[in-house]
Structure formats: C-alpha cells, structure tokens
C-alpha cells in the first residue's frame, strides 16, 4: 500500500498557511518573553556592577546589546526551525527547493533585510557613541589627549605604573608619593594616567569599569567616577611575560574622609622614599642598557596643575 503525496496543484497544496505571519508571531512572542526574562532576572546582575559611573554604563550597555541581539538570534533560529519543520523535503506538497519563482529572490524581503540590519547597526553606532561621550570614554584609555573629558570641579589624578609584574600608583597631588595600594575616594572623578616601565601591560580595574593599555613612553588617560564603597580587582589584561597571570591586585573605594586621612598619612610615611623617586612625570624612560636599571622622567610637560585634589600641588 502506498500513500500518494498530493501534487502542488491539489487543493491541499494550494491552501498554504501564511508562513510569514506565523514566523513573525513566533519570533515576536519568543523575543519579548526572552528579553523580559533577561531584563528582569539577569539585567541587574550584569557585570561589572555599579561601583562607578563607567561600570554602571558598561552594565547598561551590555544589557541593551543583549536585548537587541536576542531578537536577531531568535529570528534566525525561528526561521531555521520553521523551515526545517514546514519545508523539509519529505513533507507532502513541499515545492522543489531549487528553481522556480522562489529561486529568483524577493525584492521586498531583500529591502526589508537590508533596511532592518542598517537600522540596527546605525542605531548601535549612535548609541555607542553617545555612551562614550556621556561617560567620558566609558573608562577606556583615551590616549594622552582625551577627546572626552569630565567637567567635574574636583578631579583626582592617579598615575598607574605597570612593570613586570606588578602595578604601583603615584598620587601627584599628594606630593607624588608612590604606593602599591590603590585607594580611591567615593563620589569622585578619577583621572588615571596609565603608563609602563617596560613592556605593554593593560590596567583593568574590573568592578569600576576602567581598562587602559599601559605602554612604555605613553600616557594613556582614562576617567571614571566612583559611586560605591568596596573592593575592586585590578588585573593585567595584556600577556606580558612569565608572571602575567599573577599580575593582579586589589583596590578600594573608601569614604572621602578616609581617603584624605590615608593619603595624608601615607604622604608622611613615604616621605623618605618619595625623595628617592624621580620627579613626577607623565611617562618615564627606562634605561635600555640591560641590567642597568633606573628610570627617568621624560622631558615633556609634567602634570598640569589644572586638576586639583588634596592640599599639595605637584612641582612643575
């Protein structure tokens, strides 16, 4: 006994369901449910968190990018799944997959596809640019001449010095002392000056949403404004040699009063050490003669006095 498949000309074959409407309905339903579930349950926990304005911005950006990307992913999967189920070759009444009018393309579909993807990409471009502008570079290194600079009345400059394999930090407005501890005051805009004494490193202060390459001879500036007290992780994010994996540290965001006490105390405690340091400079030139160490301030402009925080100005 054999079951004969109906030919395309039979009434069963001509009574085609409205595939586009079906796909559209499934796509919208799954996308809306998926986006809602993500926004409600995952969104608040998207890293890097809320310790700074740039971290918050990063979290929001990741969430929005996911909300935009999910419908695209769902659209592809729904279409593929629908096609596999409805238009598989063994299904009765399915037209030939190759040839015929369907092989010549569909102008409306093509225009809709190009238009929708163009809108998505351009919208993300505008969104990304605005986000970079609003958060003064979104915590990324902007090089020595930042395009986006904060307008805060008070800015704390902190120099990040990377070397194989640790970070140290100089506070130019507190006498230029250098310390292995990265302590920041809350609700304060911080201007990181990131540089290196040897190879390329990357300063990645994860929970406060700052990430800037540390290049020798280069002053890479990144901004953030701290918003919450707490501890954050600092890692090197550029493969830099044997102990790259151990090149991590922890920083702390503390109250303004605690910070000022710490900075004043440390400035005094390290006064003898500070005298042995080279004058504060935006970059330092290591001696290239192998085992002969030493590093020296470059001859370019020392730190500008425009930014002020704390009582002591760096000597210029």
């Amino acid at each position, binding site marked *: 006994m054999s079951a004969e498949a109906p030919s395309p000309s039979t009434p069963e074959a001509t009574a085609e369901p409205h595939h586009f409407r079906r796909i559209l309905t499934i796509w919208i339903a799954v996308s809306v449910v998926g986006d809602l579930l993500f926004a409600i349950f995952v969104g608040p926990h998207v890293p890097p968190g809320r310790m700074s304005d740039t971290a918050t911005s990063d979290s929001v950006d990741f969430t929005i990018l996911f909300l935009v990307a999910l419908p695209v992913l769902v659209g592809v999967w729904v279409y593929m799944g629908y096609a596999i189920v409805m238009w598989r070759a063994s299904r009765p009444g399915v037209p030939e997959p190759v040839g015929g009018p369907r092989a010549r393309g569909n102008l409306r579909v093509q225009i809709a596809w190009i238009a929708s993807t163009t809108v998505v990409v351009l919208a993300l471009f505008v969104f990304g640019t605005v986000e970079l502008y609003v958060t003064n570079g979104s915590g990324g290194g902007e090089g020595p001449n930042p395009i986006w600079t904060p307008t805060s009345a008070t800015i704390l400059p902190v120099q990040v010095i990377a070397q194989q394999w640790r970070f140290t930090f100089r506070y130019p407005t507190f006498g230029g002392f250098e310390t292995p501890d990265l302590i920041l005051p809350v609700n304060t805009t911080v201007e990181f000056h990131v540089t290196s004494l040897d190879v390329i490193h990357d300063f990645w202060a994860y929970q406060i949403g700052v990430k800037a390459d540390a290049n020798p001879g280069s002053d890479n500036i990144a901004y953030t404004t701290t918003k919450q007290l707490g501890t954050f992780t600092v890692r090197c994010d550029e493969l830099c040699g044997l*102990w790259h994996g*151990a090149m991590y540290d922890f920083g702390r965001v503390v109250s303004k009063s605690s910070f000022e006490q710490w900075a004043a105390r440390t400035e005094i405690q390290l006064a003898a050490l500070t005298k042995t340091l080279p004058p504060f400079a935006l970059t330092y030139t290591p001696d*290239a003669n192998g085992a002969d160490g030493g590093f020296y301030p470059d001859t370019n402009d020392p730190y500008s006095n425009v930014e002020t925080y704390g009582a002591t100005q760096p000597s210029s």
Partner: protein
Amino acid sequence: MRAVARVPGDGEGALSRSGRLAVAAVIVGIGIGLIVFLTAAFLRSSPPTVDFASNHQAGQPVSLTLETVGSIGYGAHPTWVSYLTLSPQTGQWVHTTLWDLPANTTINVTINQYDSGSPLRNQLLGLVQGTTGNVMMLNGKAVSLLNSNTGNGVGHTFSIPTLGINVPLEGVNGNAPNFCNAAPCTTEAHNVVKFSFVTPGPGNYPWQCFLPCGLGYLYGNGGPMQSVGYMDGFLKVVS
C-alpha cells in the same frame, strides 16, 4: 596463474609495497612519538624543589638560606644571574628557586648577595615591605629603605607581590678584588641580608627579582628574569 621469472639479485629480499608502507608508518610513528615525548618532557621540565616542610615541627620557624650570584657558571646558561638555595638535607647549594614551605609559619630568610648593583627601575622597590616589622637586617643593621641611586645600588630584590613582600638586596662593589664571578660563592665579597615573614595558607605563590638584571636583553627583562630557577620561583606552601 602466471609465473614470473625473477632475475637473481633484482628485488630479491626487497619488501613488498605494503611492507614498505608498514615500515614507513612505524618510522613516522616513532618520529611523532619522539616529538611528543620531547615536547612534553620540555614542558614538564622544572628545577628541583627544596623541601623545608616534610620534617618541620609545628610552631618552629624555618630557616631559608639563599644566595645571589652574578653568573651561575654552569648549566645551560652559565652567564645568567641566579639565585641558589641551600638544601637543609644535604647542606649543598642547589640551583633552584622552588621551595616547599609549611603554611602559617615564620620563615627566617638569609640571603648572601654576591652580585653588583645598579639603580632600581622603580625606586618604590627600595622599600622593605611585608617582612616582620617591615625591616631587614643588612650586614647586622636594621634597614627599611635602600636608595639605589647611592652606594653600590641594588643587586636584586626578593619580592612576593601577592603577599606584599619586597626586600631590596644591596649590591657589592663590582670592582672588589674578591668579587665572586661564578656560583657557588662562599667567602667572596657579599652582603648578608636577613629578614622574616610568615607564610600564608597553602598555595603556590610566585616570587621574583624586580631589578631588570637580564644582561644582554632589551631593558634587562629577558633571559633569567623570565626563567624559573634563576630570578623567578614559587613558594609552594603546604599544610
């Protein structure tokens, strides 16, 4: 069936095609095996670990004695600077920077520093940090900060960044008549540095020298500065 007459000596004793393929497969297999073995052996090769933990009595401090030399004088890289460790079992100097140490224990370190010095690349590392009292004894005197721009500079540092420990080791005069040229050094010109620290819980903690002492490498950061057994090592802290 057709019989083919063989010419004596022509192909006699030669392997069939499948035989030759089998031999070739065996040779290739042995070659691949050797490459894998040698690669694995290279990757797994490591300096020896000196054991300070096995015979340790709880509550007692451990004595860790090291020396730094300007050139090791033997082995694969005889001109490289290096640390050496005095084995508590044999009393011999061992060319290694790996130690098994007991957890939560005071380690009394003695470093005999035989190398010449130079300015530090980062003067912050002239500060003694993380040791008991944030101090070291340099030739019997308590020191908490070394200015490497003066005197003989700093020869090397003993630093464990993850534990916040840093000890600069003052250099010796490179022109001293009794300057030690190759390990092991004993009575030649040297500085004796002593300090203590307490080991944390079990784990592996990398330590290193921060003075770029890889002579002949760009910025002094290559060679021994990137090699475990020379100027880098592990504290293998065990419970």
